[in-house]
C-alpha cells in the first residue's frame, strides 16, 4: 500500500524465482538465486544489494531475459521476461560498458535509437539532448575506444535513456565514476524518479544506495534476507539523537547533567560530514578560490 492508502502498481513481480547453473553434463553447479519473491512498485528507486555472488546481477539478467529462470515466474511491466516487447519501455545500463567501441558517441546513440524504430529527426534530437545531459557532447565524434571509463559510463547511461523508458535497470551505475560523476549520476536518478520513472539498481556502494533508494532488498547466497524501506530499516529505535547549533559549554554541561540524572548512557561529540560531502565541498571551494589550501595536515612529529 502507498502512503495514501492506494494499492501500489507493481512494475516488477518476482515469484519464487530460482536459478541453478549447471555444468556441461547438466549437473548442478551452483544455485545462484533461490526462491526469490519480491515486487518493485511504480515510481520508486529500488536497490538490490548483496556481496559478490549473492545473485543480484543474475536476478537482473533474468529480468532482462538474458538468463532463463530454472523455476519461478517474472512479470515485468505486465509481460513475461522473455517477451521482447517489454524492452520498448525498459532502459538498461550494464555493469561494465559493453558498448561497441568502434562507434562514436553520436553513432552509438543513433544505433540504439534505430533499434527502437525511432525516426531520423527524433533520433537526432534525442542524441543531442542525451549527449548534453550526460556531458559528453564535446566527444560526440570520437570513437568509444578513446573514451575514459567515466565517459563510457555516461554514454552507457545515455543509451539506456534513449527511449524515454518507464523502467530503468542500472547495474553498478556509479562504478568507474569520480565523485563528481557519481553525484551527477545520483542527481540524475533522483531526477528520473521525479519524472515518475521506476529505477532498479544494483550496487556495492552502500552510501550511493542509501542516498537514492526508497526501498532495498539485500540478498545473500541467492536468498532474500532483508526487504523494506531504507529509512525504516536504518532507523535505530532505542537511540535518540540531539543536534544543535552553537551550544555553549555551560548549556552543554546542563544537558549532560540532565542525562546523568535520568541514568542515560550518552556521548557528546561534534558531528562529522561524510567523505563525499567533504570532497564535493573541497572541489566547489577550489573552483571558487583557486590556489588556496583548505585544510592543513597536522605535523606528525616534532624535532
Amino acid at each position, binding site marked *: 500500500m502507498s502512503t495514501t492508502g492506494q494499492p501500489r502498481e507493481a512494475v516488477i513481480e518476482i515469484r519464487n524465482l530460482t536459478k541453478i547453473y549447471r555444468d556441461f553434463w547438466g549437473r548442478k553447479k551452483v544455485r545462484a538465486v533461490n526462491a526469490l519473491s519480491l515486487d518493485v512498485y511504480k515510481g520508486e528507486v529500488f536497490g538490490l544489494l548483496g556481496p559478490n555472488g549473492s545473485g543480484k546481477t543474475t536476478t537482473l539478467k533474468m529480468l532482462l531475459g*538474458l*538468463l532463463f529462470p530454472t523455476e519461478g515466474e517474472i512479470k515485468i511491466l505486465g509481460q513475461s521476461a522473455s517477451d*521482447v516487447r517489454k524492452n520498448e519501455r525498459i532502459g538498461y545500463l550494464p555493469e561494465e560498458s559493453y558498448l*561497441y567501441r568502434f562507434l562514436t558517441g553520436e553513432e552509438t546513440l543513433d*544505433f*540504439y535509437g*534505430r*533499434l527502437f524504430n525511432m525516426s531520423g529527426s527524433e533520433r537526432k534530437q534525442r542524441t543531442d539532448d542525451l549527449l548534453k545531459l550526460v556531458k559528453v557532447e564535446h566527444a560526440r565524434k570520437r570513437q568509444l575506444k578513446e573514451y575514459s571509463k567515466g565517459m563510457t559510463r555516461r554514454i552507457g547511461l545515455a543509451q539506456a535513456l534513449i527511449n524515454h523508458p518507464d523502467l530503468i535497470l542500472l547495474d553498478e551505475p556509479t562504478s568507474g565514476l569520480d565523485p563528481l560523476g557519481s553525484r551527477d549520476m545520483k542527481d540524475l536518478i533522483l531526477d528520473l524518479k521525479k519524472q515518475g520513472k521506476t529505477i532498479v539498481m544494483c550496487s556495492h556502494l552502500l552510501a550511493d544506495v542509501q542516498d537514492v533508494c526508497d526501498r532495498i532488498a539485500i540478498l545473500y547466497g541467492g536468498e532474500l534476507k532483508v526487504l523494506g524501506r531504507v529509512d525504516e530499516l536504518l532507523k535505530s529505535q532505542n537511540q535518540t539523537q540531539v543536534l544543535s547549533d552553537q551550544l555553549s559549554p555551560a548549556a552543554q554541561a546542563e544537558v549532560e547533567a540532565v542525562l546523568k540524572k535520568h541514568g542515560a548512557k550518552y556521548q557528546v561529540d561534534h558531528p562529522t560530514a561524510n567523505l563525499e560531502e567533504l570532497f564535493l565541498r573541497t572541489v566547489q571551494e577550489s573552483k571558487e578560490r583557486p590556489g588556496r589550501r583548505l585544510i592543513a595536515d597536522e605535523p606528525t612529529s616534532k624535532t
Partner: protein
Amino acid sequence: MNFDSVPFPLDTSFQLWLTVFGSATLIVLIVSLLATVASLGSRGLGVFANELGAMLGDFVSISPRRVFALAQLTFREAYRRKALMVFVVFAILLMFAGWFLTSSNLQPEFQVKVYVSFVLRALSWLVLPVVLLLACWGIPEDIRLRSMHTVVTKPARRLEIVLGRMLGFSFIGLLVLTAMATVGGFWIRRQLPAEAQAQLICRQPISGELSFRDREGNDKDEQGEALKQGINVGDIWLFHSFIEGATKARAVWTFDDVGPDVLDAEGNLLLENRFQAFRSHKGDMKRSIYFQYIFFNPETGVRAPYDLKTVEENRGRTDRIPRKFASVSGTGGITDRKTYDLIEDLVTKNGQLTVEVACVDPGQYLGMARPDLFIRTTDLPFESGYIKAVVCIALMLLVVTFIGVSVSTFVKGPVATFLTFVIVIVSYSARDFMGTIIGDPDALAKAKQYSGMQEMKKLDGGGVLESIYRILTHMNPTTELPAGPATAVMKTIDTGMVNFLWLVYRILPNFDYFTKSQLYVANGFDVPFNPSVLGCLMITLAYFIPCVILGYFALRVRELEAK
C-alpha cells in the same frame, strides 16, 4: 572440362529441398517438444506452444529499420577493423602477377584462360576467407564482449540480429568483390598480350542432342533403344565416344529452334567443334583426319553433305556454313550437285536442324560428346560472361556468409570458423566421393563419366565397420560375410552411418555450379543463365531460408550470459 550445360532441375531440386528442410524442421520441433515436456512436465506443452507462437510472431514483426541498423553496425565494425585491406592484397597480387603469367609460347586462347582464371580465382580465394572469418566471429565476439546485451535488451528480435549480421557481412563481401572485380576486369583487358585480345570474347553456343549410328547405319541397339554411345576406343575417359571412318557410322546432332536469327551478319551458320581423332594407323602424316557435316531434313528426306574438313586436334575449329551452299552427293562416279538453302530446305517446320558427322578416313576414328559440336551465335563481349561469373562468385560468398553466421549462433568463433571451413572444403572436394558411397545417381553418373567404367554402382565392401572387418580378415569385398548376429549389428551400424552420410551429402552445398561459371568464361564461353546463374541463385536461396531459421532458433534458445 565438360561444358555440357544440362538445365538446372528446378522441380526435382525443390522437392528434394522441401524433403530435407521439412524433415530437419520436423526433427528439431519434435526434439524440442520432448525436451520441454521432459523438463517442465505437462506445463511444457503450453510453454512450447507459446514459444512457437512467439517465434512465428517474430517473423511477421521484422522491422527493416532495425535490420538495417544491425547491418550498418556490422559494416562499420568490419570497415573500422580494416577488413577492407584485402583489397590491397589483391592490388599487390595484380601488380606482380603479370611477371609470371605472360608467356608468348601459349596459344592466344590459353593465354586468355590463364589470365581470366587467375583473376577469378584470386577474387574467390581472397574474398571468401575474409567473409568467412568475419561471419564466424561477429556474433560470438558480440556475446563474449557482451555488446549483445545492449542489443537484446532493446526491442531487437534475435531474428533481426541474424538477418542484420547476414546482410552486413554480405554487403561488405559484395563491396570488396565488386571493387576487386572491376579492377580485375580492367587488368585483364590491359595486361593480356595483344595477340590474345581477339580471343577475349564470350561465345554463345546452342547445344543439340547427340545420338549415334553404328557402322551398319543402325540408330538403335539390339534392345531397340536409341544409340547414345559410339565406340569405346579404350580411352579411359568415356565422356567421348567414337565413330569409325569410311563406314555408315555417324554422330547425329539435333538442334532445336534454328532460324535465320542464329546466322551471323553475313548469313553464315557457325558450327564450332572440338572433335578428337583416334588413329588405328599412321595414315597421311601431312594432314589431319577428314570429317564431313551432312545436313538432313527428316521431313523431306533431303540429305545435303557439306565440304570435307580436317580435325583440329586439341584446339577445335569453327566452320562457316553459308546459308546457300552447293552440295555434291552420290558415289561411283554418279554425282548429284544441288544448291540448298540451309534454313528453307534443311530445317524442319518446327525449327529442328539435324547435323550428321561422318569420319571420312578409313580405319581412323573420330571422337565426340554432346557439347563438342554447337551452333555459335553472335559472340558477346567478354565483360558479359565476366560479370555473370562474378555474380556467381558473389552468390557463393553469400552462401558462405549465411552458413558462417548461422553456425556462429551456437558455437564460439574458432569452432564456427573451423566448422564453416570444413563445410566449404568438403563441399568443394569430397561431395562427389560421398555421393558415390551413398549411391546417389548423379554422383555415380559423374563418376562413370570420369572413371571410364562401363557401369558405376555403389562401392562394394560395405560401410566403415564392414570394411575394417574385411581388411583385418583379408576378406575379398565380393565375398559374403558370415551370417550371424555380429554381422547384423555391423551392417545395421553401417547403414546408420550411410544414412547420416546421405543427410550430410544433401545438406552440403553443391559448389560445382559456382566454380563452373568461372571455367566457362576462362574458356571463352558466355555463362549460361540456366544452369549456371539460375543454379547458383537457387542454391543461395535454398541456404538462406534454413540458415536464417537455424541461426534464429539457436540464438533464441541460448542464454546469452552463459559462458
